[in-house]
């Protein structure tokens, strides 16, 4: 209740941008449901925040993969985080366009992925070709930094990852696919 009171008061005196900034601050803390070491902001799925004249908040998010089952959890987590801070009238809107790309992932996010043991996505390359046995980009082992690695499977435990193995330290690891 205290939070709500504070927020309402501050909004009355704050300009719109400051209000939005405060919302961003809250959302920034929301972790990705499947890779909790990074936040939704790190992942680059939060596209925009809109505030209408009657103070209704709309958060625009975009899925990483079209069937990503984490989208509903993401929406709920954002809504919950804002509600807990006293924000009301929150709506989450999902948009597909422009399509999410791993280039939207923050440098901070890539760093956190690597520390967690997941190889972060390389810079975007041309992924939209259906050519078979295409040479994969070189993926660095997140544990020993060796570039001497091989792909085990194109698909991993979530749609956004592939399975790799390091030929130097022999550890298997996941690679956050360039997309």
């Amino acid at each position: 209740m205290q939070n709500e009171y504070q927020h309402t008061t501050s909004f009355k005196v704050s300009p719109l941008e400051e209000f939005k900034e405060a919302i961003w601050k809250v959302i920034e803390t929301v972790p990705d449901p499947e890779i909790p070491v990074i936040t939704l902001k790190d992942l680059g799925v939060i596209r925009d925040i809109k505030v209408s004249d009657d103070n209704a908040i709309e958060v625009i998010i975009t899925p990483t993969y079209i069937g990503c089952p984490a989208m509903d959890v993401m929406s709920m987590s954002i809504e919950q985080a804002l509600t807990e801070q006293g924000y009301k009238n929150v709506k989450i809107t999902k948009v597909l366009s422009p399509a999410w790309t791993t280039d939207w992932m923050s440098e901070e996010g890539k760093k956190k992925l690597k520390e967690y043991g997941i190889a972060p996505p390389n810079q975007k390359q041309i992924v939209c070709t259906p050519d078979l046995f295409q040479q994969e980009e070189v993926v660095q082992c997140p544990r020993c930094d060796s570039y001497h690695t091989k792909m085990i499977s194109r698909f991993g435990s979530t749609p956004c990852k592939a399975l790799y193995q390091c030929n130097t330290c022999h550890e298997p690891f996941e690679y956050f696919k360039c997309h």
Partner: protein
Amino acid sequence: MNTNSSITTPDFMPQTPNPQPLTLYLLHLADSTLILSHRNSEWCGHAPILEQDIALTNIALDLLGQARNFYQYAAELINQNSNNERSKVPPLEGFREATEDSLAYLRIENEYKNLLLTELPNEDWAHTILRQFYFSTFQFYLFQQLQQNNDEHIVAIAAKAIKEISYHVRWSGEWVVRLGDGTTESHNKMLKAIDTLKNYTGEMFIAADYETAMNIDIDLLKNQWNKKVKQVFEEATLPYSLEDETTFHQTGGKIGTHTEYLGYILTEMQYLQRTYPNSIW
């Protein structure tokens, strides 16, 4: 024999007296992806090795995501449009409007517009792989076209999905080569799969009325698809005879005339919603 003529929507089409081609087309796209997603999900826990089990269920998830987006858009159009159309696509009991769920769970067999190819049983691994390769290759070239569509909603879905589809083509194509150019047994299993599916690829390239109305260049699709399949078959040391003019093509899926298999799929898929109406996740 119905090899070259286009499919005409018969008057007895039960659910949509004056449907927009766009709505029908969206349902066609949604149904094909939903049904193949269901077939792929049947492999969960049964694939030859864990990594491939995961691959196939990942593909199922991507297809389901596409289906949901197409259904959501179709539901939006149905709700916006004529009352006739709305009254014929039942909303879930207690819901006033069509939803992605009412479209998936409450339509009957002859309202489904999926390609027959997608509803065929999985058979063995070779059969599943080949069907996926055929379908993903078709989707890849189709979605290239849809990215140029006038409808920005369709463009957004196509642009999003094609990145994932290119992955599906690569994965399934690599398996076609691995099996075709593998052992005698895997090669023979591919030959059998080719034979089982040969009457079910033609339907992709015989336009339904709603596809023609959507300006899909189906001849271009056919050429691109044949070229790609031929190239991969050569690498896989498999015989290629899909352009044989004398081949009989099974058709009907696009307008609601299905094989016996679809009913069984829907029975399982819709059981819960029909037995316990309004159940939600």
